[in-house]
């Protein structure tokens, strides 16, 4: 077991994890961050995309199935659950996905939204083709991508018009939740027993 400390959506979580635990499983099974989902086992689908700080502190999009939980030690993570701003206002990308009907079943949506946020941080004024190529790491089976592309272009225009960036507003955890020593979730919901056991 390795002790890690990860700040997820503004809340610091200190946990002992197995070295083999993937970040996405840590988020889902230990921290209860089930907004981030798993769609494949070969890092093709991108459903688990989140933002994680790089060593310089800049948030970049990563597939959380391709990161070990221990690699997230000391990093900041933003999931789709932490994307909304103060007072739960939707992020421009979330708003655009709603307005443009950029989701149907919604399973790829958390990852697609986070990938789009990452794309717009990199390139605030992408062309349609740049959006299509920028989202190639994320699969959607419902929409044919057309409305997703429209939504990302709309969000880009919104963000530029507002003079801001795609970077999500700093999360505002509820008072008292910010520095919990453990995951802080009810034992019934994510029992410690659910921690994967070592490979024999």
């Amino acid at each position: 077991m390795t002790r890690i400390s990860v700040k997820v959506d503004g809340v610091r979580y200190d946990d002992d994890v197995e070295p083999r635990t993937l970040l996405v499983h840590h988020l889902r099974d230990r921290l209860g961050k089930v907004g981030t989902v798993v769609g494949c086992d070969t890092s093709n689908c991108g459903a688990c995309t989140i933002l994680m700080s790089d060593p310089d502190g800049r948030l970049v999009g990563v597939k959380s199935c391709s990161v070990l939980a221990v690699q997230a030690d000391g990093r900041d993570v933003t999931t789709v659950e932490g994307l909304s701003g103060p007072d739960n206002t939707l992020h421009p990308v979330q708003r655009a996905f709603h307005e443009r009907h950029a989701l149907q079943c919604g399973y790829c949506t958390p990852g697609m939204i986070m990938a789009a946020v990452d794309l717009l941080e990199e390139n605030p004024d992408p062309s349609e083709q740049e959006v299509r190529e920028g989202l190639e790491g994320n699969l959607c089976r419902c929409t044919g991508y057309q409305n997703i592309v429209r939504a990302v272009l709309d969000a880009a225009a919104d963000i530029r018009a507002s003079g801001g960036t795609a970077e999500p507003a700093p999360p505002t955890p509820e008072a008292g939740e910010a520095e919990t020593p453990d995951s802080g979730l009810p034992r019934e919901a994510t029992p410690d027993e659910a921690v994967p056991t070592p490979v024999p």
Partner: protein
Amino acid sequence: MTITEQPPATAGEVGTPRRRKEDARLITGRTMWTENITLPGMLHLAILRSPMAHARITSIDVSPALEMPGVVAAFTGADVADTMGVQPCAWPVTADIVAPTHTPLAIDEVRHMGEAVAVVAARDRASAVDALAVIEVEYEPLPVVLDMEAALAEGADLVHADAGTNKSYTWIFDSAEAGAGGAVADARAEAEVTIKRRYIQQRLIPAFMEPRSVVADPTGDTYTIWSATQIPHILRFLLSAVTGTPEHKIRVIAPDVGGGFGGKLQVTSEELIAFAAAKRLGKPVKYTESRSESLVSAHHGRDVIQDIELTAKRDGTVLGLQVNLIANMGAYLGLVGPGVPILGAFMYNAIYKFKAYRFECSGVFTNTTFTDAYRGAGRPEATYAIERVMDELAVELGMDPIEVRRKNWINADEFPFSTVAGLEYDSGDYEAATARAMSLLGYDELRREQEARRASKDTVQLGIGVSTYTEMCGLAPSRVLGALRYGAGGWESASIRMLPTGKVEVVTGTSPHGQGHETAWSQIVADQLGVPFDDIEVLHGDTRTSYKGLDTYGSRSLAVGGIALYNACQKVVEKAKPIAAHMLECDPADLEFTEGKFRVRGNPDGGKTMADCALAVFAAHDLPDGIEPTLDADAVYDPVNFSFPHGTHLCAAEVDTETGAVKIRSYVAVDDIGKVVNPMIVEGQVHGGLAQGIAQALFEEAVYDDDGNLMSGTFVDYTVPTAGDLPAFITDRTESPAPGHPLGTKGVGEAGTIASTPAVVNAVVDALRPYGVSDIAMPCTPERVWRAIRDASAGGAA
């Protein structure tokens, strides 16, 4: 988090692009996927799957798994043989169909790679998966049957030795025998042109994004099952039927479900295994498949060999159509698998006026994952074959492909039209849709560009593909289903519950998994009851609240469920009328219900809303004598006919003759699906359908090696298209309302998939006609296109 919407300026909700109610939870990560459910004391299941395509299990020992940390139980098919039930086939299409027993866990023998052979229950998923590695299984390999034609040959190795044959069934329709048309032999005698072609519908995988997941919770003698399914009601009925657990002791919940496309229209091994495990262990269990498991064990689709013979006169008039199919059932029969080609049987004649038609299909067993419904289910295969062969006829006669279609299609003034396949097409205007599509594409201009590129021997050639499709939605009149030996009816149910504050709960028997029923159903009810859109809650997918329904597949939800909903609303209005009249102190006959209010006819002032009536029945202090104090109403609707959407899809594709790369330059889809409730949702359905149809044409194929190993077993190899692979689509609609449907709607869920595959392949082949290419097997990958050009050139055709 809520998303508030301003009501549209127009009076009616129906017809407006309402933003979806569903989105709020989906875009914020607050969705209830089955995999998100964690119950106290829950155990996690992992399934050991066969690495062999066909083998006898000579020994299996799960006891080492029990020594592993965290493992609570491990069992085999033999251990639960008496309780696990069998996987049902609800569509035995012939009286003498061969339908081998399909147990959720194999006993003694495995017949396809990925078949479940043992189960581990542990305190967490990782422990369960770890323990699979120590289960000892010895397999004795048996001959592997993969090729369908070889499987049907005399003396072939058998998938099911007991059956004595690899043929499951042969199903025949003959228009002469059915009295729907003439005999194909007579048409053949009259023919001046005969076109014979073989087309291969490659095997596809539905590849819904949410892996299948099931939670089974035993409480006393009752069981609650959450499942990522399209069919909670059918699942409840069949769980009861195959396990003997009384139906009223089973509650099935389909929470948020992440796509289906027919792939979750199944009673799965995994559901039955979880149910058996929960019973055996007395604890809640959860099983969620990995993507690799999903691709090999969830049912596949298509995989049909089509031999088509079309006869015609030299002026382009079609005469007869003969269709011989061999359909790969895989190792077992799926829930509706045998019937999938039969759904297509009625669609090969498409929009054309054939004199005679004969269809014959044999279902064949092979050592592969079993096949079943995938978006379109039979209709894409039919549409592909007829639209490809109509192009071949056009080439044979030197006609434009649209001209040859126009010469043969049913004219707008000929509806309703009885087809040679025995159906009555309700309405349509093929001319209007085609004219619109040609205009949007710039058809004539592109033809000129094509000529110029051909003349200059441009290395990038341009092709234009045409698909003038129709399909059948609104499954289905129960009597028709009965005549086709389908195991259930085709009705749908809806209930309206008026709450005292005037809010409305709508209970539907449809089970959405991305289609936006919560939004569209709210729009319908808002208009019918005159209540605000936001005052309506749509309940679905839980057999405790929605106990009656036949679920969502086959583009049936609005076409059938929408009428049930409409009818339930009318009943509510009728119940409210005497109550409003009592409050207004008038005769009910003098009331009219418009814009959400009961008013005395001719008096625009005053009046009573549905909310007023709801409060009045709640208090029940002053109701007319003999009036039951409720406005609630149920309705069940059994359709009298299918609905027949149609449209014209045109694809312009550029083919690089040096690399074989295909680029869709322009794609126009003009669909006529009757009236629409929400044009935004409709457009989304078309987009997604197009992507899947184009994927069959260009990208996707499930491939087995000679030993029966699935080679496309991950998303690395099964190439679902990305945003960069697809073009922007141009979509538009024409509108021929569905007669007999109070909303005039027809259904849209599968249209894009049905129409687009032939449009794309016709475009690719059209581009390469000068090179002597007349067909390319799907998917038209660069390698296949390049080889087709090379092989045709080598034959001296260029």
